[in-house]
């Protein structure tokens, strides 16, 4: 009895520490596609309940995009052709793939999402997920038709972010306590941060484009280690996620290869 017990517990503990073993085995794709499929069916029904608010969000977003279109001053009246006023040559860096979020949790300290897009749709591991209200998470496993993603409400995530007004950047993390708030860390103490300041993505990592809203500052304080911790109220209500966009950086491969061939580290290797 005791032997069986200890044996099983040891296997369980091994799995606890080797959590990534699931990602390497066939179980990952099997369980992702199965839960994705069933949750997709469930989401189809429950989404009807959220339709009014989803419609409202989409209308807001449409209005916002239309506004941007006007600012860009596109469409020539004579030639009926679109042209951009972008001085950088208008090369596209990010592509946005619309997706449904079929599974989502907020009660744990390591929350995960399932989305109904996979490698067949061009999703890769490491892509970002956003909604019109802000950052949601990062894809950790891409199956054929469904993918798993780590939610912003996860202790393991850290995202580059900055204060909108003065462009000072820090790291967004979640302390695992309240699913409505995240924390902005690593901001220098002498920076003046006011209540109500907008926190947005920084664009320093290739995952998210610059300037995507995350939330608003509600309070700040010095924590036990003497660092400034800023409480940020999320704009997106994570209890009510249904649609989002997967952000793929089209230059990701190039950025990665450039960062690999870092001259400083190379020199250290030579010595």
């Amino acid at each position, binding site marked *: *009895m005791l032997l*069986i*017990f200890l044996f*099983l*517990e040891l*296997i*369980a*503990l*091994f*799995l*606890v*520490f*080797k*959590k990534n073993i*699931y990602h390497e085995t066939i*179980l990952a794709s099997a*369980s992702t596609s199965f*839960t994705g499929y*069933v*949750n997709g069916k*469930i989401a189809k029904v429950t989404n009807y309940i959220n339709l009014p608010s989803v419609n409202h969000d989409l209308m807001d977003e449409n209005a916002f995009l239309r506004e941007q279109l006007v600012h860009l001053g596109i469409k020539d009246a004579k030639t009926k052709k679109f042209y951009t006023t972008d001085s950088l040559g208008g090369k596209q860096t990010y592509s946005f793939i619309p997706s449904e979020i079929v599974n989502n*949790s*907020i*009660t*744990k*300290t*390591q929350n*995960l999402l399932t989305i109904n897009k996979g490698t067949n749709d061009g999703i890769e591991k490491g892509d970002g997920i956003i909604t019109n209200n802000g950052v949601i998470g990062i894809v950790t496993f891409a199956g054929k038709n469904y993918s*798993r993603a780590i939610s912003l409400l996860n202790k393991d995530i850290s995202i580059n972010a900055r204060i909108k007004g003065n462009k000072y950047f820090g790291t967004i993390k979640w302390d*695992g*306590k*309240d*699913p*409505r708030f995240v924390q902005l860390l690593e901001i220098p103490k002498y920076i003046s941060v006011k209540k109500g300041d907008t926190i947005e993505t920084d664009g320093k990592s290739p995952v998210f484009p610059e300037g995507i809203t995350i939330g608003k500052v509600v309070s700040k304080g010095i924590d036990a280690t003497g660092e400034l911790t800023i409480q940020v109220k999320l704009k997106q209500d994570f*209890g009510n996620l249904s649609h989002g966009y997967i952000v793929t950086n089209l230059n990701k491969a190039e950025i990665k290869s450039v960062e690999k061939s870092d001259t400083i580290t190379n020199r250290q290797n030579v010595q």
Partner: protein
Amino acid sequence: MFNKDFLINIIKIIIFALLQVFVFNHINFLGSYQPYIYIVFILFYPPYQNKYALLILAFLLGLMIDIFEYTGGIHAFALTLIAFIRNPIIKLLAGKQEYEMEFFTFHSLSFAQWIFYLSILTCLHHLILLTLENFKLEGITPTLLRALINSGITLVFVFIYKILFKNKVGI
């Protein structure tokens, strides 16, 4: 050990795992508390059935939840532990010897003993689960609090289950 009961129990744990993953994982109270109803299987496992089978079934059930939720082995660990200490706790509560366990049913527990049995196993399970999930001692007080509130919510569902399946479960 691998008889008809074992097969029926395998089907049962599959149903419990699916219920947990697809129904009860979507239920949350006040934003951050959620019931783990699959422990009902361990709580109401008949004491006269094979106890070695119980350990293996508990491990498999936990593993299924872990695979679906990508949580490593925390559910498997917590459930196997509960399954292991379940019979000793019954013996302690009812004052039975090992050889008497074969004829023991939950009918012979008083209401207070019954509540105590359910509460202590549920609380212990949630405590181990949430501690492993956090895996840090610094947040021990909020973890304790969360475990207690979560246990309360789970217990409500356990009682609903008991009322629904009154005749089969006993008491």
